[in-house]
Every structure is written in structure tokens, then in C-alpha cells.
């Protein structure tokens, strides 16, 4: 569809939105497009300036985060023995809630935009690291043998085989990173910046300014979507048939054998602790806010009040997990379920895929205030934020998994005129499984991010709220403890998902586990 034909559904959608907003005006939930437009028009200059700030922070974080992701992936392939430990460490840092890292970085760097940039980088590096690592390893054995057969070494293999092979994976990672960088910058601004869209969001939320909240979400979505589209153009220019992004599970973890991965995790955490303490000593950071691993240990174990500290932390973590768990499962189930359902109606899938891909470009967290507004500050709002955050990536992953069902297999089913349901269960579901699990793994840090941000912004419960209070009252021992505990919980959840993945895939899609 081109021209007016393409704009028509959009116009209809906006009209519907307007009608809905006007009909529900009393409940004060949906801002009408006209109201949003009015707000945009009257505050154009302010919003533009804020957008400029946020976009600039996001762009810098995007650059640094992607560079870090690429460097990490290169380090991992060049030191295969350290690869798993490096991967676990990278995952652990990625699982640390941004709403906790934000205030810590704020204290470290003072005013300015360093924390926003750092948070944008933190939100980005892992989703670049994983696909690039896969890409660097994706080349078949014979390509390396070709290089070796002519007497050339690992450097030639890196330059001639690994790097070009990783390029399309990098392009895909760079695209995913666009909304993530935007999101990181905005969360950075939530945690005490003086400028930017995130700061305006906070102000709008506090002032109960409905059109402003919506206007900011719309701007963030549009700009990030545009940048996402441009990054996609770049990706297609690099490789007309980009690979489906299926970051593999941490390599080498055998199904139903825990000892290896567990030992690696312990090693990785020890390395992380050393790094943590070492960096603080290196930069001579003051004990007052830069708590060492030993301080956290004392706070939670040996201190006189340790019991009380633990109880407070455990209670908050319990509340958070009670929100994150259902939201996580709901998001996964809805995403996979909708993908499966759409497969039975291929026409609909063709419509849903572009929509889902487009929505993946939206920094979902920007819509969190709107969602919380709509559903209230209780459990429903938080669970929904988590579920929405997970739903779209899962849907996209599962749809592309289905699209990768081997043509020959489908032809076989079709040649027997197999009914759609049988085709789905026997041919397409096995193709979904790897994509589903990859999405489920990546959804763990996403859920942590969503739930802590919602708690920080709005609900006043759970670990996110505990972090907000600790940061505000300079209770840094609690802030560091809460951060570490959340990271560990996320790592454990991720490990459980990876374990389930290995167990299921080794039975249903053995070829996916080989690498």
C-alpha cells in the first residue's frame, strides 16, 4: 500500500483514539490526540529542547554501549576459556536495575549528563554483545580450515571470516539497541536529571498532567521508532537477508548437568566482586557511598542490625517478585499464544508482524507512566507494565521463529493437506521453541527493569521503591545490597530459564543445542 491507502488506517486509528478519549474523559486516563497536539503546540520549544537533550544522551550511550558490547564479544572469542565467565558477568551487570545504578552514578559524577549516558550504554551493551558473539562464532568449521590450509593464523581468520560473518548480527544488534538506548537515557533522567524528556515525565506525573505525559510518550515513541527504522535500513544495506536474532544460551551448559555452569557462575561472581572492590580502590571512592562487597556483607550478615536489614530487603524483594513473576509469565504466554494463533490465520500474521516490529521500536518504559496512570498504582498497573515490556519482543521472536520453519517441512505437511492445527503442532511449534526460549531469557532483565522502574516511579512498593528511598536518604549500604540482591535474583531466574531451555530443546530441537 502506498500514499493515501496507507494513511487511511492510521487516520482511523487516531479517530478511534479521539472518540475513546472523549468517551472516557471522566476517568482521566486517555489523553485525546487533539489534547496531545495542543500540548505539543503550546510547549513545542520546551519539548524540543528536552528531546534534544535526551536524544544526545541516548546517542552517546548508544555509541559507548555498542563499542563495549563489540569489545566484550571480541574478548570472549579470543579467550574461549574465559568466555562463559565473561558472559555471566556481562549478564549480571545487565541485570542490575537501572534505577539503582542511576543514583549511584549520580553521586559519583555529580550533576551533568554522565549518568544518563552511562545508563543508556548499560541498557545497550548486552543486546549487542550477544548477537555479535553468536555472529563471530557462526562460521562453519570449513571456513576456518580454508584459512588454516593456506597457513594463515587466527588474525587472518578474525579479519577474513569472523568479522564479516558477524556483520549482519552486529547490524541486527545495532537496531535493537536504538530503543534501548533511548530507554536508558530516560531512566537516567528519572533518577534526578535537570533536563530531558525523563525529567519532564516525572514533572508531568507529579503534576497529574495527563496530556503532557501522553505527549512525551508519543514523542519518545516516534523518535525512537524513526531511528529504529533508519538502523534497519543500515542493516538491510549491510546484508539483504539478515539472520534472525536468536542469541544462543550461554555456551556449553549441558542439559541436566548443573555442576559446570554453577562453578562458572561462582567464578564469575568472584571475579565480579574483585572487579567491584578493585575499581573502587583504584578510583579511591569514598566509603560513604561507594560500598565494597565487604560492606554489603557486613550490612546483611555480621552487623548488629543485620537481621532487620535482611528482613526489610527480603520483604521488598518478595513484593517485587510477586509483581514481576506474573507479569513475566503473562507477557511470555500472550506473546507466544498470539504468535501461534496468528499462524493459523496467515493473513493476520502478515498484518501483525509489521505492527509488532514497529512497537518493538518504542521504548516501552516511556509508556509506563501512561500504563500506570490507566491501571492505577496497585498490582494491576505494575504487572501490566512488566507484561507489555515482554509481550512485544516475545511476539516478534516467536513470529520470526515460525517464519523460519523449513520450507520443505511445510511442503511435506501441505502435500498431505494436513490441517492447520496439526501443521502448527508438529511443524511450526518446534520451530518456535528456540526463538521462544531466547526471548524468555532476554525477558528476565527486561522484567527486572520494568518492575523496578514502575515501583520507582509510582507504586511505592517493592525493591524499586526501597532503592528510591535508600537513594533519597543516603542509605547507601541498603542501596548496594538491594542492587546486588536484585542482580543475583535475576541471574538465578535467567539460569532457571536457560536450564529449562536446554532440557526442552535437547529433546525437541536437538540441532539447536549443538553449538
Amino acid at each position, binding site marked *: 500500500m502506498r500514499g493515501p491507502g496507507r494513511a487511511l488506517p492510521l487516520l482511523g486509528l487516531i479517530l478511534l483514539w479521539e472518540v475513546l478519549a472523549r468517551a472516557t474523559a471522566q476517568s482521566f486516563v486517555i489523553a485525546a490526540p487533539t489534547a496531545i497536539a495542543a500540548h505539543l503546540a503550546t510547549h513545542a520549544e520546551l519539548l524540543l529542547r528536552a528531546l534534544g537533550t535526551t536524544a544526545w544522551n541516548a546517542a552517546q550511550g548508544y555509541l559507548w554501549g555498542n563499542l563495549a558490547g563489540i569489545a566484550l564479544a571480541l574478548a570472549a572469542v579470543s579467550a574461549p576459556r574465559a568466555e562463559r565467565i565473561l558472559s555471566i558477568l556481562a549478564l549480571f551487570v545487565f541485570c542490575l536495575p537501572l534505577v539503582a545504578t542511576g543514583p549511584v552514578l549520580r553521586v559519583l559524577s555529580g550533576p551533568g549528563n554522565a549518568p544518563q549516558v552511562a545508563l543508556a550504554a548499560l541498557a545497550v551493551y548486552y543486546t549487542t554483545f550477544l548477537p555479535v558473539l553468536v555472529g563471530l562464532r557462526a562460521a562453519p568449521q*570449513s571456513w576456518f*580450515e580454508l584459512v588454516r*590450509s593456506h*597457513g594463515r593464523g587466527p588474525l587472518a581468520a578474525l579479519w*577474513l571470516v569472523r568479522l564479516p560473518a558477524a556483520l549482519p548480527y552486529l547490524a541486527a544488534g545495532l537496531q535493537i539497541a536504538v530503543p534501548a538506548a533511548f530507554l536508558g537515557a530516560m531512566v537516567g533522567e528519572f533518577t534526578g536529571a535537570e533536563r530531558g524528556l525523563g525529567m519532564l515525565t516525572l514533572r508531568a506525573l507529579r503534576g497529574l498532567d495527563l496530556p503532557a505525559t501522553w505527549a512525551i510518550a508519543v514523542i519518545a515513541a516516534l523518535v525512537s521508532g524513526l531511528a529504529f527504522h533508519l538502523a534497519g535500513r543500515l542493516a538491510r544495506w549491510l546484508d539483504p537477508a539478515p539472520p534472525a536474532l536468536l542469541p544462543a544460551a550461554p555456551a556449553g551448559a549441558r542439559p541436566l548437568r548443573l555442576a559446570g555452569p554453577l562453578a562458572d557462575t561462582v567464578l564469575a561472581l568472584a571475579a565480579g566482586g574483585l572487579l567491584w572492590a578493585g575499581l573502587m580502590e583504584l578510583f579511591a571512592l569514598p566509603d560513604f557511598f561507594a560500598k565494597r562487597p565487604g560492606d554489603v556483607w557486613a550490612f546483611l550478615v555480621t552487623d548488629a542490625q543485620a537481621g532487620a536489614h535482611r528482613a526489610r530487603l527480603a520483604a521488598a524483594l518478595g513484593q517485587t517478585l510477586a509483581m514481576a513473576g506474573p507479569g513475566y509469565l503473562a507477557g511470555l504466554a500472550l506473546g507466544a499464544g498470539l504468535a501461534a494463533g496468528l499462524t493459523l490465520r496467515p493473513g493476520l500474521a502478515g498484518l501483525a508482524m509489521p505492527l509488532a516490529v514497529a512497537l518493538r521500536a518504542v521504548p516501552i518504559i516511556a509508556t509506563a507512566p501512561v500504563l500506570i496512570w490507566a491501571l492505577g498504582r496497585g498490582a494491576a498497573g505494575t504487572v501490566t507494565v512488566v507484561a507489555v515490556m515482554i509481550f512485544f519482543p516475545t511476539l516478534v521472536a516467536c513470529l520470526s521463529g515460525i517464519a523460519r520453519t523449513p520450507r520443505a517441512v511445510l511442503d511435506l505437511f501441505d502435500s498431505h493437506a494436513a490441517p492447520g492445527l496439526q501443521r502448527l503442532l508438529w511443524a511450526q511449534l518446534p520451530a518456535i521453541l528456540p526463538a521462544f526460549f531466547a526471548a524468555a531469557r532476554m525477558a528476565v532483565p527486561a522484567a527486572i527493569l520494568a518492575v523496578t522502574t514502575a515501583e520507582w516511579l509510582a507504586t511505592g512498593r517493592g525493591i524499586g521503591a526501597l532503592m528510591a528511598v535508600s537513594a533519597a536518604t543516603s542509605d547507601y549500604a541498603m542501596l548496594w545490597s538491594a542492587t546486588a540482591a536484585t542482580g543475583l535474583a535475576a541471574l538465578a531466574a535467567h539460569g532457571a530459564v536457560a536450564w529449562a531451555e536446554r532440557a526442552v530443546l535437547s529433546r525437541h530441537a536437538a540441532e539447536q543445542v549443538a553449538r
Partner: protein
Amino acid sequence: MAERRGGPSSASGITAREAAPDILLQGVTRDFGAVAALAPIDLRITGGAVTALVGPSGCGKSTLLRLLAGLIPPSRGHILVGAETPDALRRRAGLAMAFQDAALLPWRSVRGNVALGRALARRPRDPRADEALIGLVGLAGFETWRPAELSGGMRQRAAIARALAAAPELLLLDEPFGAVDELTRERLNAELPPLWETAGATVILVTHSVTEAVRLSDRVLVMTPRPARIAADIPVPLPRPRAEALAATERFAGICAAVRAALRSAEPAAGPR
């Protein structure tokens, strides 16, 4: 056994070298974990000659080639190419292998892949010679095509051109014509030998076609199922150049029959192994 050939023609522009040294295998075995792929193999392969390896699938032909390429070490025994190990020959860019799966880099065109063979072997760029090689394997007009756009047979031919571009002393061809159609195969069987003859290279060729083995080689080695032994060593004392008409002669048919008989007696007894 095989007569040495120093061909006078130099159509390809590759200059003749000193006669290539013999390859010597002594008690060579190779295991993969508990699987023994090669039984102890003792063998002398004549330098500058064409040796064909035939045998059932999975018997260890590719493994033997990779040993000769110095890509994997033998589990026991040793291999010498003249005075040096295959690994040393590999390191000084003295060999080239056309892999069973072609192993073309998908982001490079046919031309780019052929140029890669030259570059990997640390030879100076020579687009004209690359072009000639591409034409020789029948890919003229496809220079800018990517591997994904080529048929299986075309990919294998590009891989052969790439191996030739390295101007190797030892050329290892792993089922190079497996996916090539019958007519093209005939043409390549006629056009490739002059090329490696002038280069004076030692050629070791794995093939499933008995007639092709006899047509191209000076000697056919028949291998048994895993763990592979050399079950038969059949010389091919036919004059060169070998025209297509040769295949219709009684002598040719006799050698083919001998190879087939050796293959049959090397087959395992019926039933699962």
C-alpha cells in the same frame, strides 16, 4: 607406476616447478574419541602424479585429506611431504584444498572468493589470472555472483578455481565434482588436468565416480569402510592427454572393472554396522 609428466604447454600461465616430492605415510591412524577413522596406513604417493581415493561414504577419505593438509595431526604414525610435514607445507602456503562443502565465503562474489585463494597464499593480486581461472571452470559471466545465487555444482567449481589460484604444490580435492552435472563434469575432466600438469602439482582427488577416478588419475586407491585401510592399489597406465574417446576402450573398461571389484569386496557384509 605413474609416469612423471612435465607438460610443455602453459596455457594457464602457471609456470612449471621442479618435480614435486613424494608423500610418505607411515603407520598413520586417526581416532575421533573412541571412533577409529583410519586403521594404520602405510603408503607412498608419487609426487606430481594424480592419485584418486575411492571408498564408501564415511570411511575416512576426508579425514585422510585433512591429515595430508596438516589441518589435523595423526593420532599415531607420521606423514612426510618430501622432507617436511604437511603442517610445515601448509604454513608456507604450499598446498590448497577444495572442500567437500565448497566453503565459499557467502559475502564474497565468485571473483572475490577466487582472489581470496590467491591472497591467503600470499601471492600478489592478479585479476587477469583469476578471470582466466573462473573461465576455465566454466563460470565466465558469473564473476559478480554471490555463492547463494549459484547452484551446488557452480559453487564447487568456484572452490576449485580458488584452490588453483593459490598455485599449490599439493592440491587436495574433496569430491570436487559431487554436485556438478554430467556434461560439465565431462568438460572439467578434460580441461582441468592440463592445468595441474603444467603446474607440476601433486593432486589427490576424492571421488565417488569410478570412471572419473580412472579418467583423471595415475593410480586409484580403494579404501575399506571405517576404520579405513587401503584395500586395493590399482595403477592406471593410460597415455595422456586422455580424450573422452578413451573411456570407450577395452583397456579403460578393464581398469574400471578392477576398481569396481575392489570396491565390492571392500564393502561391509550386509546389515547394520
